[in-house]
């Protein structure tokens, strides 16, 4: 993330800076008393069809404090209950209301309005899946004769080369299973989604970490698919399933120069 130097201003001067949480349509916008960063109120700043949800920026630098991270998230969640929301990343501050309109809402009006239209009645669902180590290792021993043989040879302490061979083999088996099972889950869930955002980072025993953009009307179908997956994989794969969330993972602006 590129960090920029905050605009310099006299330290004790009363700040007019506005912290911005996200954009919603003007007719769905509402104040949120005391819900903003540092507990100040969130107010919409409207421009034509759009409303930016803002609050007075805290003095000094915005820090990624636990309470404020949660507030940013909660403000968007509350707005999402009222209508469609385009979530902004944490930490975006405008100099004042005029610059918010001039530099963001006005030049991006049509793009933002289009995004709100497209995201209407869509929700983000997040799914992660992890293997249970004991279960998946036992499965590998059962299904790979080479692993089983090496395991027997090294019971009670084998030579380092044998142990290395065993470990490398297990690791390769695990990676193959991770890829195969992850792909299968993604295929199953992806078929019910309009789009998905997949985390490519490889984390041990994690088969899948992804967000899905799903029409509200298909939420039930998605729940059922998740239940089926969890039931079929009980004891082998643990899932976590979160939503409906505002579409954090499905918003982006065209780059402009």
């Amino acid at each position, binding site marked *: 993330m590129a960090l920029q130097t905050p605009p310099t201003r006299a330290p004790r001067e009363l700040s007019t800076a506005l912290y911005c949480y996200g954009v919603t349509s003007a007719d769905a916008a509402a104040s949120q008393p005391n819900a903003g960063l540092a507990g100040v109120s969130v107010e919409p700043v409207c421009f034509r069809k759009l409303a930016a949800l803002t609050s007075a920026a805290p003095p000094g630098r915005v820090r990624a404090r636990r309470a404020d991270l949660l507030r940013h998230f909660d403000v968007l969640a509350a707005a999402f209950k009222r209508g469609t929301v385009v*979530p902004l990343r944490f930490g975006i*501050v405008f100099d004042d209301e005029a610059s918010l309109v001039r530099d963001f809402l006005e030049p991006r009006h049509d793009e933002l309005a289009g995004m709100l239209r497209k995201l209407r009645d869509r929700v983000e669902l997040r799914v992660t899946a992890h293997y249970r180590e004991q279960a998946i290792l036992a499965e590998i021993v059962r299904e790979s004769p080479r692993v089983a043989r090496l395991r027997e040879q090294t019971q009670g302490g084998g030579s380092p080369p044998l142990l290395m061979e065993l470990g490398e083999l297990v690791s390769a088996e695990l990676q193959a299973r991770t890829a195969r099972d992850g792909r299968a889950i993604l295929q199953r869930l992806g078929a019910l989604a309009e789009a998905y955002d997949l985390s490519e980072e490889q984390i041990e025993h994690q088969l899948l970490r992804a967000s899905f953009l799903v029409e509200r009307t298909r939420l039930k179908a998605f729940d059922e698919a998740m239940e089926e997956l969890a039931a079929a994989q009980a004891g082998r794969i643990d899932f976590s*399933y979160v939503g409906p969330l505002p579409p954090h993972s499905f918003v982006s602006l065209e780059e402009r120069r």
Partner: protein
Amino acid sequence: MAIATQGTASNYLQRAPSPSGLADVVELILDKGLVIDAYVRISVIGIELITIDARIVIASVDTYLRFAEAVNRLDLTQTEAAGLAELRGDNGGGGGGGDGKAKGMMEGAKDKASDAKKGLKERVKGD
């Protein structure tokens, strides 16, 4: 074998309305969300890059030895029994994956979340 689709059995998995840990929230609002390009005069200020502590997959001697050890420690009679219990649909089997299903799964997920959260907290403090 991987993804069998059987009749729907409820109570295996509940959708949570919001993330259970700070780590998940952080991933959503620091990694995702609209970014406004640098051309616009906006200050994204005071944020250190925060990453979630998790064991990234690396092929290394340490990893191999750890797996070898874990495989050697396995009690196959227990995990096998658990596997069969799973198929029969009863909750009996001990060890391995045999602990009560839905409950076990929720706890597993929670453990992971709180681990990540712990790592994260330290970094947020360090900021």
